[in-house]
């Protein structure tokens, strides 16, 4: 779960990391009020995506009328297809230098990694490798002062900023651990002309799998309405822009299915991973949702492991009865109870394939015929 900048900053602030004075605004009037209270402000679109700056999502205003105008502009925008519905109005900063600091889960080393650079404010990917300091953190013991000092030394920072950045890194790691974050990031972390070090931006992505023990966090919702609907069934779902709806069981086989459809010239409408152990009920619901998106054809590709092919067959039969669709449907069943599954489908008039490539070729052909 991604948090909005203002939410991340609230967590940072609570952890003792300096953040600018700011107010959340949902309307132009609220932005004007914030400016009246705070003086000259930066008004920043709050969206759950990066690249906001380049997309024009930040404006500055010295007076309340300017703030209202800027806010009105921003509230009409969309950034990466996400409509802007809220703004963070923050006291304008007098910036001397922009740094980057972030902590992420590193799958390769199986531990957190701290990444820092004196070249902040841009995409960290564009910073030359020699200007990036990386340090693995032992999850057993956490980030110690000495390790943060070594990072700051390698960044090339001097006192008094160095000591302040060390302190911020230690607090940032605490946020990372306390809130089960996959990523915490301050970009830029700025040194003000007065010497103060402050988080000018903030990002915190929380592990979805840990939300059950992070009840105190604010909730955000990502994805389209449809994606959220399928997700609420406990399944993984991503909307794509093609016309062949796909359901398979397992992320790898679902991706492979999309790859094969594309290779045969088809365009997948979605990624729907029913998971290794999905039950009949959510699979039925998911199929209903897929059919309701009015694709040109549907491919169900199941290799039975935990999932039993007869369960899948029953789900398909049930979904077709509920939705009463005439969308062409291709089913591939292989593995546990494959024969039983194929028989169930046959009784409902559906021929199942045993090869995923034959099934993919068939569904592409059907989607083409449907043109």
């Amino acid at each position: 779960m991604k948090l909005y900048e203002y939410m991340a900053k609230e967590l940072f602030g609570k952890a003792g990391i300096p953040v600018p004075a700011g107010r959340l605004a949902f309307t132009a009037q609220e932005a004007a009020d914030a400016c009246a209270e705070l003086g000259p402000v930066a008004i920043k679109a709050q969206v759950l995506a990066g690249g906001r700056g380049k997309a024009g999502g930040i404006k500055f205003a010295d007076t309340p009328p300017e703030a209202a105008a800027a806010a009105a502009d921003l509230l009409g925008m969309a950034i990466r297809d996400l409509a802007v519905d809220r703004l963070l109005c923050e006291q304008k900063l007098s910036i001397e230098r922009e740094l980057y600091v972030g902590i992420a889960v590193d799958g390769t080393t199986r531990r957190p990694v701290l990444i820092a650079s004196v070249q902040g404010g841009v995409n960290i990917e564009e910073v030359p490798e020699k200007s990036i300091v990386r340090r693995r953190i032992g999850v057993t013991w956490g980030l110690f002062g000495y390790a943060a000092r070594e990072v700051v030394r390698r960044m090339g920072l001097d006192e008094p900023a160095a000591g302040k950045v060390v302190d911020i890194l230690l607090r940032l790691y605490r946020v990372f651990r306390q809130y089960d974050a996959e990523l915490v990031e301050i970009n830029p972390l700025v040194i003000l002309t007065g010497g103060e070090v402050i988080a000018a931006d903030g990002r915190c992505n929380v592990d979805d799998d840990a939300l059950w023990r992070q009840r105190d966090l604010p909730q955000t919702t990502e994805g389209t309405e449809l994606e959220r609907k399928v997700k609420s069934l406990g399944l993984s779902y991503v909307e794509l822009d093609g016309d062949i709806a796909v359901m398979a069981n397992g992320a790898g086989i679902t991706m492979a299915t999309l790859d094969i459809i594309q290779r045969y010239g088809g365009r997948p409408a979605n990624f729907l991973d029913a998971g290794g152990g999905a039950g009949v009920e959510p699979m039925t619901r998911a199929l209903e949702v897929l059919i309701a998106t009015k694709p040109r054809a549907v491919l169900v590709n199941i290799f039975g492991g935990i999932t039993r092919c007869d369960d899948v067959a029953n789900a398909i039969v049930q979904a077709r009865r509920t939705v009463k669709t005439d969308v062409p449907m291709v089913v591939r069943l292989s593995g546990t109870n494959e024969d039983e599954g194929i028989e169930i489908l046959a009784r409902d008039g559906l021929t199942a394939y045993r090869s995923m490539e034959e099934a993919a070729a068939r569904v592409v052909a059907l989607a083409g015929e449907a043109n």
Partner: protein
Amino acid sequence: MAIIVDEKTKVCVQAITGRQGRFHTRQMLDYGTRVVAGTSPGKGGQEVEGVPVYDTVEEAVDKRGATASIIFVPAPFAKDAAFEAIDAKIQVVTIISEHIPVHDAMEIMAFAAQRGVTVVGPNTFGVISPGKCKIGIMPNRIYIPGPVGIAARSGTLSYEIAYQLSSAGLGQSTVVGLGGDRVVGLDFVDCLRMLERDPETKAVVLVGEIGGSAEEEAAEFIKGMTKPVVAYVAGKSAPPGKRMGHAGAIIERGRGTFAGKIDALKQGDAAVAELPSELPALVKQALERV
């Protein structure tokens, strides 16, 4: 031979009294796995499918000599279960459970590394040395013994591939599911290192996917291997920045792209299949060259 598990492996099923634990205990017993014990706190003294149940893994190790465990415990309790197994001197811990918080996974791996324990998973289908021992939830009938080692990030996709290999008469020495999460116990390099040393393995199949950098690291390692490696990577059609089900399959910051992985693998002298169905032929060619 084989790697990680073999006919000597004695398995303890953690959460054996649950629906999944019970079902797969039956499956594993049917396969011939030596399931010697199960655990379920507060249910010590019962039996499941003829297997004695204990309150703790320590007891299962003391009384039944378990050397491996398989964890079906729900995610919130999985860390406790994994630590229990490691602390009880279990040597191979297979974590089937999905949705384990990544911070818990990091802690499990740190503790396992301290104790020199092999962790398979989490979010894995398990590990099987066909004809000898199956610890996992994979179907019993798709594997046959033989010279091909398989290391895979994805479960069902690897079943598909194992099934195709078996159908082509290409049996497997050991099939390892690394697990679909971002932080897992074994990576490709760990498996390749073991398979390279295993006398029974003559060729290796690597089943990868986009996201992360495990395939790129594997490609580096393959350069120094004597055994041929054939790879398939899923996710060619995935749009950048979209989550495709696994945390491990996020394409972010330009790393872990399909093209990058394929390039690396080819440079590492792996044969690369474009479709799963091409794998049997490529493996056959590789075996003929050995």
